[in-house]
């Protein structure tokens, strides 16, 4: 009997998806993804209600989800990241049950250990054979790593592969093997290439971003961690990438060979690896075409799962071997707690992703952000939402100075010795408020619209509804 089906509707019927079940999706097709919307439309058409959607991330492209919420098709959401469009609707209370936010690492872990079971995983795959052996490395919708889908493929009760490149011959070196796959559905197109990966990710030309990036590289140099075997992760933000460029210059000049570059991988990390800054790349997600090309052709560019990347229950997780991570923030408080979930008006526009996983694991967790965005200070007395707890954050880099967590007196001394502009975090807050004024406190309702679950399973914070 063939696993190949002609439509998602058929898969829904054959798997007897019914009210109250949980379906899951990965986000490697990012803002180009067609699969989640197609599957949810089919579920709605079938008249099924009370579905829980467990997606590794939700982007603006998934806005049709809001109609499914209004119509009672979707009544629960679990995710690690949520774009501003869906986030705003959630913040305004569209969903009765609070959203469960997890981290990338713990999402994989709780799917695996049964805390958050998945009935059917719908896995978008840029190439699959008829058995469901599949990969993200080839095909017209190639996205590179499928790292966030591995737990779904391995632990969901049922697995459906959805592809727009179905091949006849058995796929060699699949990322996900077909033995647990129930069905393979062929679709005209699983995603819009323009939204899947960016052509190239560029470093910032913003002078303030470059100043911060240069501080970040000098902090790494001064930290004592810059030596052979160093491991490194950075985000795809302009200033973070610029920091990677400055770091690369230092590593090449000092002939330092690191062990691995980790996480979401960009062309910049690919170049660093090629030029000898790292032995290998461990890739849970590709951000641009260079990264996709590299993971396809470079044996030292390795695909890893969310569990290998960052599971809190896996002592061998890569984040636990991470020396340095550079992260962003929308808000940091004087206890170094970081908010990456909500914007300045309290509206959801993000999520932890791997933020708190890497901060917890890395020896040096660095937040890089300008002190003022428009008129708003990055530093406040208390963040409106704790995404990453302050005791896992070591240093905040702004253009106006570098604040070191008091628990890292050793690091502070090293930065002072390197003549970096170290300031107390309270002083940064005072400076910002002196220039910009003291913002009126955020007014929220008292209904919880999302629970932020930390990687250890505890609810670290709740997000309240917005009344305006």
């Amino acid at each position: 009997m063939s696993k190949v089906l002609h439509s998602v509707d058929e898969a829904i019927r054959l798997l007897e998806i019914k009210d109250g079940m949980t379906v899951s999706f990965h986000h490697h097709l990012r803002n180009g993804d067609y699969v989640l919307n197609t599957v949810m439309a089919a579920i709605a058409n079938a008249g099924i209600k009370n579905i829980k959607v467990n997606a590794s991330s939700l982007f603006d492209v998934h806005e049709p989800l809001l109609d499914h919420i209004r119509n009672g098709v979707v009544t629960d959401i679990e995710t690690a990241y949520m774009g501003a469009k869906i986030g705003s609707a959630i913040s305004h209370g569209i969903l009765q049950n609070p959203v469960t936010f997890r981290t990338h690492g713990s999402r994989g872990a709780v799917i695996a250990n049964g805390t958050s079971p998945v009935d059917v995983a719908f896995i978008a795959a840029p190439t699959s054979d008829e058995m469901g052996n599949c990969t993200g490395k080839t095909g017209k919708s190639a996205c590179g790593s499928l790292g966030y889908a591995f737990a779904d493929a391995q632990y969901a009760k049922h697995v459906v592969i959805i592809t727009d490149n179905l091949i006849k011959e058995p796929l060699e070196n699949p990322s996900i093997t077909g033995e647990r796959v129930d069905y393979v559905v062929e679709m005209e197109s699983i995603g819009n290439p323009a939204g899947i990966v960016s052509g190239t990710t560029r470093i910032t030309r913003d002078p303030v971003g470059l100043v911060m990036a240069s501080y970040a590289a000098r902090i790494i140099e001064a930290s004592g961690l810059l030596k052979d075997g160093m491991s490194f992760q950075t985000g795809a933000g302009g200033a973070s990438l610029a920091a990677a460029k400055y770091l690369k210059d230092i590593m090449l000049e000092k002939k330092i060979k690191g062990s691995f570059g980790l996480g979401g991988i960009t062309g910049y990390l690919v170049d660093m690896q090629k030029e000898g800054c790292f032995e290998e790349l461990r890739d849970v997600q590709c951000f641009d075409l260079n990264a996709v090309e590299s993971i396809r052709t470079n044996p030292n560019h390795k695909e890893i799962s969310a569990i290998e990347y960052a599971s809190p229950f896996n002592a061998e997780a890569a984040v636990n071997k991470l020396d340095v991570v550079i992260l962003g923030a929308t808000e940091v408080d004087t206890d170094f707690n970081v908010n990456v979930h909500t914007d300045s008006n309290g509206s959801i526009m993000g999520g932890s992703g791997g933020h708190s996983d890497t901060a917890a694991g890395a020896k040096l967790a660095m937040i890089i952000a300008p002190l003022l965005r428009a008129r708003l200070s990055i530093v406040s007395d208390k963040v409106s939402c704790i995404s990453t707890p302050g005791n896992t954050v070591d240093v905040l880099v702004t253009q106006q100075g570098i604040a070191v967590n008091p628990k890292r007196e050793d690091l502070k001394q090293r930065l002072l010795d390197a003549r970096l502009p170290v300031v107390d975090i309270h002083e940064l807050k005072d400076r910002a408020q002196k220039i910009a004024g003291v913002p009126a406190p955020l007014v929220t309702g008292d209904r919880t619209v999302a629970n932020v679950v930390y990687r250890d399973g505890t609810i670290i914070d709740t997000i309240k509804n917005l009344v305006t």
Partner: protein
Amino acid sequence: MKLVKSAVAGTLESNDVFVEIEPAENIDIEIESIVFAQFGDDIRTSVEDVLNEMGVKGAKVALNDHGALDCVIRARLETAVLRASEV
């Protein structure tokens, strides 16, 4: 200072404010801002301050603010008032 014509000052760029002003019987202030929730009241106070300091008794003022600091808001409004009072 008496306004004799309408005038504008500032830009719609980030960290700046675009001010439109015209002569009117009374003071009428309209504020649109990306940081209205946090600084709406402060912005209104600054506008009233500047108009008062410059002796403007009648003006219709509209601000489109993209996160300008207080000193920028005051500068742009002062410029607009001076431009509107030039004969």
